């Protein structure tokens, strides 16, 4: 297995640095929010992971289509990497969302469209891996994975809009001030800096983890092939 390319080594280091800077800005440069206090700072990481996981999700659905057309297993490998990294990122999104909700709105969970869709998407990802686990043939595994990722990729946005449209019967979380209940608060320029830098940082981290995961997938495929050859 060829050793790590230099670009990737550099990217590893850059990711750590960029993430560190983002955390610093979020924790020390951005001002403390007036109503919620310090917990609001988790918002930057919450959105950072959410946005990149969403990107990964869309990518994965795209990879599905390409794989189903070309039947080239490379796209399957890309898809697995995208979904795995997105799964980890969405987990962080959900947990941070919950932690933010607790002191802000006195509840561990809100059934608002974003958080709920994140949870549903997470379940789709988990189901994706459970599906793949139950299949031994790599070709069939790739095909089924692609089909499910496509179906999931179409369904989750519809779920989001459905929840939004139907403004459900679930009790609306009411807190002291209404803007916070919708998750909106006005951002000062420093907050905006923290916000956009977090987006940038997590995109870099996502690409780094994604690339690393792809290489792992390559190694996995090579080992499987060699295993078959040797044990024949």
């Amino acid at each position, binding site marked *: 297995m060829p050793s790590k390319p230099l670009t990737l080594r550099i990217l590893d280091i850059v990711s750590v640095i960029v993430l560190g800077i983002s955390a610093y800005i979020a924790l020390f440069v951005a001002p403390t929010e007036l109503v919620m206090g310090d917990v609001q700072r988790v918002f930057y990481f919450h959105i950072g992971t959410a946005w990149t996981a969403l990107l990964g999700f869309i990518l994965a659905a795209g990879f599905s289509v390409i794989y189903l057309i070309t039947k080239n297993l490379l796209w399957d490998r890309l898809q697995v990497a995208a979904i795995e990294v997105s799964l980890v990122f969405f987990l962080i999104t959900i947990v941070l969302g919950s932690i933010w909700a607790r002191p802000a709105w006195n509840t561990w969970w809100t059934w608002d469209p974003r958080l709920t869709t994140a949870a549903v998407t997470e379940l*789709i990802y988990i*189901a994706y891996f*459970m*599906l793949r686990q139950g299949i031994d043939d790599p070709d069939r595994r790739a095909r*089924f994975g692609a089909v499910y990722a496509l179906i999931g990729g179409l*369904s989750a946005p*519809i779920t989001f809009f*459905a929840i939004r449209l*139907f403004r459900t019967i679930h009790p609306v979380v009411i807190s002291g001030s209404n803007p916070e209940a919708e998750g909106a608060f006005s951002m000062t320029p420093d907050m905006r800096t923290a916000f956009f830098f977090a987006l940038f940082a997590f995109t870099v981290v996502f690409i780094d983890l994604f690339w690393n995961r792809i290489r792992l997938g390559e190694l996995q495929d090579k080992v499987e092939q060699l295993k078959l050859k040797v044990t024949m």
Partner: protein
Amino acid sequence: MIDKVTDVKPVSNSRTRPSGNFIKAVAAVLWKDLTAEFRSRELFSAMLVFSLLIILIFNFALELDIKTRQSVNAGVLWATFAFAGTLGLNRSMAIEKDRGCLDGLLLAPVDRSAIYFGKVLSNLAFMLIVEIIVLPIYSVLYNVNLFLPGLLLVILLGSIGYVGVGTLLAAMSVQTRTRDILLPILLFPVVIPVLLAAVKASSGILAGAELADILLPINLLIAYDVIFIAVAFMVFDSVVEE
């Protein structure tokens, strides 16, 4: 018991009318499933009994006064349909695989998607029959009139979406090692828009809400049905090829 494709009426080999070929294939699959089920009734009785038991469980799980119960009727109904539906989907596909019918169908010179449509129609038929029986029983048990045309329409649209995606996913799950257990795990997250819209529309109809409120979720149901059946139609080939 029909367990060989040879028992089914042969598909016409008219190359001049490919669409007629397709429809005949769909009809053949549907006919096979319906007659097989008519003789054994194993799927149907299982789904029906399961539905009634679910309603029973909900009765004890949600000890409600009459007023509160009115707000959950729609939800309980759809939860029942969702759970009983997986039973039917699982068994329907498992029967195909176990008796080798699927292989037989695949050998026939028909478009693979004809098999998909045939299975969707037969699964839909089973689900609708079960629902039609559950409705009056629920009505009687809870003293609520469920035979409103709007509600029947919503049940139809919701079942179509559910079965459309469910048939595709069942075709996949039956080929994995985990089989039955996997279908609900795959299906439920993806079918949430159907449940959302169906419950919203159903409760609206039962509460006598305005047309505008009900039309929106119904439109969503229609959109979902169209999108997902189209997608399933396109990818079904990849799911059953050897």
